[in-house]
């Protein structure tokens, strides 16, 4: 049984469908089909929260559903936890001016 699911093959993040623990290996399946991706989880990630499918650089636009969902505010390794501490909206994005 897969423990994480992503929408598109080119997405940068998947969603945990069970609580994930640091160090475990999971097979990520894709809604649009294709082979699962084997991934080592770097941090505890609760059900419903996101895990990085690849190394994401600081400042990189993060993709889910094949669309931009925000900008990384720090480097996120593959298998790392992606949430409000390292991902910000592109809307009302004033480049840190306020």
């Amino acid at each position, binding site marked *: 049984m897969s423990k994480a699911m992503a929408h598109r093959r080119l997405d940068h993040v998947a969603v945990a469908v069970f609580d994930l623990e640091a160090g475990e290996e999971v097979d990520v399946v894709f809604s649009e089909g294709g082979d699962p991706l084997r991934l080592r989880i770097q941090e505890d990630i609760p059900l*419903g929260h996101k895990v990085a499918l690849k190394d994401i650089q600081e400042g990189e636009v993060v993709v889910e559903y094949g669309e931009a969902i925000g900008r990384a505010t720090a480097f996120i390794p593959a298998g790392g936890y992606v*949430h409000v501490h390292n991902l910000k*909206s*592109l809307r009302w994005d004033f480049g840190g001016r306020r």
Partner: protein
Amino acid sequence: MRLTGYRRPNGRVGVRNHVVVLPVDDLSNKVAEGVAALIPGVVALTHPYGRLQFGEDLELTFRTLAGHGANPNVYGAVVIGIEPKWAERVASEIALTGKPVEAFAIEGQGDLRTIERASRVAYRLLQEASEQEREPVEIRELVLSIKCGESDPTLGLAGNPALGKVVDYLVGEGATVIFGETSELTGAEHLIAARCATPEVREAFLTTYRSYVQMIESKGVDLLGSQPTEGNIRGGLTTIEEKALGNIQKTGTSPIQKVLRPAEAVGPGEGLVFMDSSSAAAEMITLAVAGGSVLHFFTTGQGNVVGHPLVPVVKISPNPKTCEAMKEHIDVPLPDLLWGEISLDVAARRILEVFEQTVRGRLTAAELLGHREFVLTRLYPSA
């Protein structure tokens, strides 16, 4: 699918059979509650507004109140106002449907006499309503609505795509399906615009969306502190774009045929339509019901408990923790869809089975628990 419902004098079809008492202002709530206390079984739609409103804000309140009286889930209505003029205006709009409706004013009479006179009418309407019989109805005769709430990424992944399949099916069978949540399209508005059926609809949609964003920015603020909500963030949603992209999964793939103002009336056979509306659960459902929705599909991740006084709200959740901890609120649990154990088609069939039962009269979780949220949307302060 074997559906039954109540056919009203104007031909519209409801799936419930209520008699409502509609106060047009805050001062009339006491009388409305008095009528509902004397005649148990009628529904009093109390609310805190209706005095010294003006312009489009007042028109929206009138449209919402009259829309509830006109909703096909309603057999007949009693309208109460402190003054006769506004009560009669709301009643006359409801009367256009051919339903029985009477208006009462409190001034010059007092609460007690008004409660007695209005209760005698409510008594008669409730008995007449009880004589109505269900008859076979078709999907193409229904106006329905959709919204998600207390969302989390399990909706974008599972619950909303399953509801999207249901919406595609119902629209294909000729139903009208209303979606809204203007603020929660932020980050996915280009995808909705691309699905508008004509350039005119696209222009109307983009004008509505942009004027909403301009309204936010004219206050010198943005939505980032409230969209996503604290509950969304706890559930794993990080940005408004991610929330919007998950949100629109439930609209399916049909073209968008119309753009409605808040609470604007819409009939069956119109396909998928967008209504400019708040993303707050009770406000959006109230506006959709005013527009004519007789049944609402509601997907939830973290566990929104909303209902409506007149319309069954069918709750769908793929989140296994929510389905376990809050099971009395969930009509269609879908954790097995999240885990990949069933297909989207199987999940959609399960939702449609509960839809069929609910249309035929089976009570939803929100009806059983007495969730009757009725919340007016205000556009600006009263005079």
